[in-house]
């Protein structure tokens, strides 16, 4: 009978371990379902992506709709090209939409803010693989200071 109690205790021990793993996986780790369902991809070219990283969120009005999946340099002039994977739930963005690289808080992570554009008869909706042309680059502090000093010098 002692052997059965031992087995029971070990079984419970393993179950506690699995519960701990589930707790860590589901409660503590990033399991945001935004990019696990149906998705489509959009591209955007920036002059400077600042501190944007792969897996940075893409937000519309603060709501996460997708994530940055790839950052490469493209074209003759080596401009940063950002691939965004957007949840297919939000598939009605017009091609007048614009994207900008924003910072959450004063020192926070950088993310992409997507501003949906206006819609009328002449405007088409963005499809999988389309590129957004209206982009605004990240604010780089050194550039800002440089511009400020330059404008001071001109006075």
């Amino acid at each position: 009978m002692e052997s059965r109690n031992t087995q029971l205790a070990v079984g419970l021990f393993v179950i506690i371990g699995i519960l701990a793993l589930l707790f860590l996986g589901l409660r503590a780790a990033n399991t945001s379902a935004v990019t696990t369902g149906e998705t489509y991809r959009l591209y955007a070219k920036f002059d400077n992506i600042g501190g944007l990283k792969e897996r940075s969120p893409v937000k519309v009005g603060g709501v996460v709709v997708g994530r940055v999946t790839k950052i490469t340099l493209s074209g003759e002039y080596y401009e940063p090209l950002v691939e965004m994977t957007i949840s297919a739930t939000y598939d009605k963005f017009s091609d007048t939409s614009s994207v900008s690289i924003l910072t959450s808080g004063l020192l926070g992570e950088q993310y992409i803010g997507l501003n949906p554009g206006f819609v009328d008869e002449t405007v088409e909706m963005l499809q999988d693989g389309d590129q957004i042309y209206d982009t605004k680059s990240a604010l780089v502090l050194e550039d800002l200071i440089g511009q400020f000093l330059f404008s001071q010098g001109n006075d």
Partner: protein
Amino acid sequence: MLDKIAGLGRVILDSIAGAGAALLMLLRALIGKPNIRKAWPLLMQQMYAVGVLSLIIIVVSGLFIGMVLGLQGYNILVDFGAEQSLGPMVALSLLRELGPVVTALLFAGRAGSSLTAEIGLMKATEQLSSLEMMGVDPLRRVIAPRFWAGFYSMPILALVFSAVGIFGGYLVGVRWLGVDDGAFWSVMQASVDWGQDIVNGIIKSLVFAFVVTWIALHKGYSCTPTSVGISRATTSTVVTASLAVLGLDFVLTALMFG
């Protein structure tokens, strides 16, 4: 002078021979066709002794370490108005470092020392020789189940430690000091990554489990079979295993997050 050089040489030769003996012991214990029907009850018994009985100390220390992290982290972060980053701070430090390392250190003290003492006493009372005389390989019968029990138990213990620690941080941070409940979890979820943090933590604890159990078993198996020898071997298990864990942790951290 020559005596000193000879002494140094003897120390080096001894340590190389010890490492070789430890490796041979492990290989002979683990390689070979396992007999599931016989090995299963032995493994269960050892999992109970090594894993289940270590659970209490792991849960209690995990809770307290999590609460201390919550308290210390809050006091520093609140100066920057960043107390909502308490969640990721507690979770990342537990998952990446404190969970595997402190579990391994506690495991070396709680389970490793008892493994060494048990096997050392078996050797001193010639139970190991008796097994051999009966035609039972003591490596397969005594060493192998203890090794696997330690190897399987420690990652589970480390996971429990991290989970309980995060809960402790939650208790202090949210329940006591008033960090926002939603922000605590959501900022944590935004910065803890499954592969980068949780899986790497599990890999760390697997490596530590291997090393600590191996050291404990070898120290017991190779000890001088006297009461002084057993006590030396037990002390040496805790010291060597703790040093090995801390050293390996630096190497693993450099490889994983460097």
